[in-house]
């Protein structure tokens, strides 16, 4: 590699693979991130699927992307990419906006025919100029070279073309000093049953690598430094997989078998997929006939004494509202994972938003409090899914865990927890001492109902959606009793503030201004605050993962600051929630509702604007 002309030393780099949805961009991106992770890089990825399953080939609607950020200090998939791989004119048109000004684009120049340009609705024959690109463009004849590499294999043209993604991957590996062994090992395992497919991919990926080698004189390349990370065993997880695993961990630590009742919905379905696989650990994942069936079967499993979970996205949460109310009323443990997407209605199914917050907090009939949590990153999904289950089981309440498309599909390197890192979860079973006098809504000192497990002699009982007497658990329409039960259910949730971590401060603690985010925006806000502090802007940061109840010190901590900037991917749902809870705050907003994550620069600019205005 010594012969490489220019080597840029960068802490981290962002590569975006883009092409037709059939071009295998997700696979190429995945292999590249796995290979990088294996070399000790921190990684963060962001798949960007087209909304249509199979849009016409070469059309703008059919473009699929996969962005991977590798290196040191990586918290997000990155705002802009350093290298953009575009397998056709449509992919270039859709993704050129994400390419850094002095970055590099790799295009398959064979696809830039008049017909290719027409399909992508270019109006001129000069695509780079039309897109206003200033970046370097590597015009690689990928299609031609793939055909050439595979000409002796006897493969038909269609099969040959499926290998184009590996040519691009080989080229990217060359650019970033990735040795060929790791991707080849990955491909060998993937195509273990199809040695001829492996052989073809090997020829092509090496062809791409060698092509990069041969044109090195004209390419700027980067070297990526590894991050310092805690010792341990690591693997790569997506947020959805981490969520599934966190729930399994909670099942192990509580001794309550895991039942998932679910219905497929983008972008939550991968949790169902993972838990369906885990029948090998005793998990019973059942795909029901609809969203309501999903949550109701879970509630049935909760009544049976199991760790019960249902997974969905925004429209599904709406359908589950009535059943959530039943879980509130029957005081049964239940975890509902809402992987948020763009809304309302069908909205932007594959895109990310934080627009379900108020639905999660308030979207039920009656006075219906429950716990709302939010995960901050793909790996945090594990921890927060575990916490959601722990709170549900120990406090006999439904818990909504909010994640979103961004962290659900994105991945990060995850240190696999060692034994003892996660606490034992203690279900609130009916204690022996009270069995003789037990009634179904008898509570412990914290106001938490006991959990009587069906099959236990002597604890037969009725629960249901009707209001019941505080003392006897028998149906009651008594007005004073109802008010007392409403308050009891409210206090049960409020008391959970005593068992969740307090909010902590990052950034400049002497600042007058603090920026607050929640859920998946953590990485972007942290990067923005780091940049702002480095530029001399005095700003602190705090991040909410426990939303209802709020951490105990929330009001005290936020009240220390003259200005609280709430940054969120909606029009101000958290801001108005906080304002209602802590009226004296001076809240300013940074909002984005485009179906896309924040860009760090947007937050930096937003903070600067607010700070200037506030000073006036």
């Amino acid at each position, binding site marked *: 590699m010594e012969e490489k002309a220019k080597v840029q030393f960068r802490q981290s780099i962002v590569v975006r693979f883009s092409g037709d949805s059939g071009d295998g961009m997700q696979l190429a991106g995945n292999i590249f991130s796995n290979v990088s992770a294996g070399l000790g890089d921190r990684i963060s990825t962001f798949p960007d699927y087209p909304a249509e399953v199979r849009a016409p080939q070469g059309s703008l609607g059919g473009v699929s992307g996969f962005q991977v950020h590798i290196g040191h200090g990586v918290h997000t998939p990155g705002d802009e990419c350093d290298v953009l791989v575009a397998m056709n004119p449509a992919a270039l048109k859709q993704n050129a906006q994400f390419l850094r000004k002095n970055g590099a684009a790799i295009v398959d120049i064979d696809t830039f025919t008049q017909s290719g340009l027409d399909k992508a609705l270019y109006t001129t024959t000069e695509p780079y100029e039309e897109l206003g690109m200033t970046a370097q463009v590597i015009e690689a004849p990928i299609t031609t070279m793939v055909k050439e590499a595979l000409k002796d294999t006897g493969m038909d043209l269609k099969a040959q073309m499926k290998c184009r993604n590996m040519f691009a991957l080989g080229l990217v590996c060359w650019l970033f000093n990735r040795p060929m062994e790791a991707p080849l090992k990955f491909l060998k395992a993937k195509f273990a049953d199809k040695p001829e497919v492996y052989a073809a991919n090997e020829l092509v990926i090496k062809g791409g690598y060698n092509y990069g080698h041969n044109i090195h004189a004209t390419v700027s390349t980067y070297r990526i430094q590894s991050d310092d990370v805690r010792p341990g065993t690591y693997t790569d997880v997506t947020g959805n997989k981490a969520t599934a695993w966190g729930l399994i961990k909670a099942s192990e630590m509580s001794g309550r078998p895991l039942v998932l009742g679910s219905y497929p919905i983008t972008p939550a379905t991968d949790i169902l997929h993972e838990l369906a696989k885990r029948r090998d*650990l005793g998990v019973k994942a059942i795909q029901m006939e609809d969203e309501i069936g999903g949550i109701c079967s879970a509630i049935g499993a909760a009544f049976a004494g199991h760790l019960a979970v249902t997974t969905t996205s925004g429209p599904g949460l709406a359908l589950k509202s009535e059943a959530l109310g039943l879980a509130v009323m029957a005081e049964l443990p239940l975890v509902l994972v809402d992987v948020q997407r763009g809304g309302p209605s069908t909205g932007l199914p594959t895109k990310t938003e934080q627009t379900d917050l108020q639905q999660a907090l308030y979207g039920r009939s009656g006075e219906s409090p429950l716990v709302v949590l939010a995960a901050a990153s793909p790996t945090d999904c594990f921890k927060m899914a575990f916490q959601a289950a722990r709170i549900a089981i120990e406090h006999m309440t439904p818990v909504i865990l909010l994640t979103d498309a961004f962290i659900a599909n994105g991945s990060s390197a995850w240190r696999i927890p060692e034994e003892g890192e996660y606490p034992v979860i203690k279900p609130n079973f009916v204690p022996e001492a009270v069995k003789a006098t037990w009634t179904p809504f008898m509570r412990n000192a914290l106001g938490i109902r006991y959990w009587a497990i069906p099959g236990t002699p002597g604890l037969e009982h009725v629960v249901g*959606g009707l209001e019941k007497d505080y003392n006897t658990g028998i149906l009651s329409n008594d007005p004073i009793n109802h008010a007392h039960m409403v308050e009891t259910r409210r206090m049960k949730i409020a008391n959970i503030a005593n068992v969740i971590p307090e909010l902590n401060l990052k950034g400049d603690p002497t600042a007058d201004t603090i920026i607050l985010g929640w859920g998946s925006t953590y990485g972007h806000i942290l990067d923005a605050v780091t940049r702002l502090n480095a530029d001399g802007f005095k700003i602190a940061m705090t991040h909410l993962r426990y939303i209802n109840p709020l951490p105990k010190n929330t009001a005290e901590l936020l009240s220390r600051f003259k200005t609280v900037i709430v940054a969120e991917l909606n029009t101000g749902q958290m801001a108005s929630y906080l304002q209602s809870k802590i009226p004296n705050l001076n809240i300013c907003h940074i909002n984005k509702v485009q179906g896309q994550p924040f860009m760090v620069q947007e937050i930096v600019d937003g903070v600067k604007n607010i700070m200037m205005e506030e000073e006036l």
Partner: protein
Amino acid sequence: MEKNTNPQTHKPLDYKNNQPIRWCPGCGDHAVLNVLLKAMSALDIPPEKTAVISGIGCSSRLPYYTKTYAFHTIHGRGGAVATGFKTANPEMTVWQISGDGDCLAIGGNHFIHEVRRNIDVNLLLLNNRIYGLTKGQFSPTSARGFKSKSSPYGTTEDPFVPAELAFGARGTFFARSLDVELGISQEVMMAAANHKGCSVVEILQNCMIFNNGIHSYITERETRPDRTIHLVHGEKMIFGTDRNRGIVQDGFGLKAVTIGEDGYTMDDVLVHDAHCEKSFVHQMLAMMDGTDLPVAFGVIRDVEAPSYETAVAEQVEEAKALHGFTCLRDVVMSGDTWQVE
């Protein structure tokens, strides 16, 4: 199903709590509750191994009066809750109580899918062809033209026949009784409990207040023997006050004849086979409506098929044996990992 080794140790009242019963006087639901308690006692499955799950409606109040693990859920969703409950714990015997509105209108989707899935639930469908709890609107089983508070000029839609839905969903068990036919009700409830899979039991039930006499065409003492038939597996299909009428095959259909008339003899009368895999004759029997052919009571269809919760449990054991994982860590470590020193 787990049976108590010491037979008849549980009396009907062992399955009943002391809550005041709030159904109207004369409501058919009283009889259903009493028969169910008797059936539970006769089955002798302990109360702690018994669950009663319902949706919303008059009949769905039934769980409140039992001393079992009972759950009064939300409108139409009893079947979905029961599915999750039974899948989680296949050791429990699960009764689902539903009505024509709960089961066939708001809960219609769950109903057809629980029948299709063949979850081992004993589903009592109390059919009074009216909404009682909301005070008298037509239901999905009300006849076309039926006048009610929400159809003052008569309905403009055709009703469901519950059996037809159950067969359409490939049901493995269908039985029918009448609220006042206590013996047949207990017989079909016990058969439902002994059937492994989703057992649909339709009980024609009278609502004194909003739909009194809706089944009177077949329930009047004088006409009941001629307008209904009690089907028993392995027995001739005979009915009538004088026990001289029978069901015979008539081309591709069925016909009611008088034995000894028109050349029909006892040999022509069909023998009921509830266990026949093919459902064609079962469907014809279930669709008999009391006009040309008598309404069928008793167990009409009872065939074996894999039950859902058993298949899930078996698959869990197979998957465990296949991969040999003991905990999450085994699964995670079996994937791509790397060490950081």
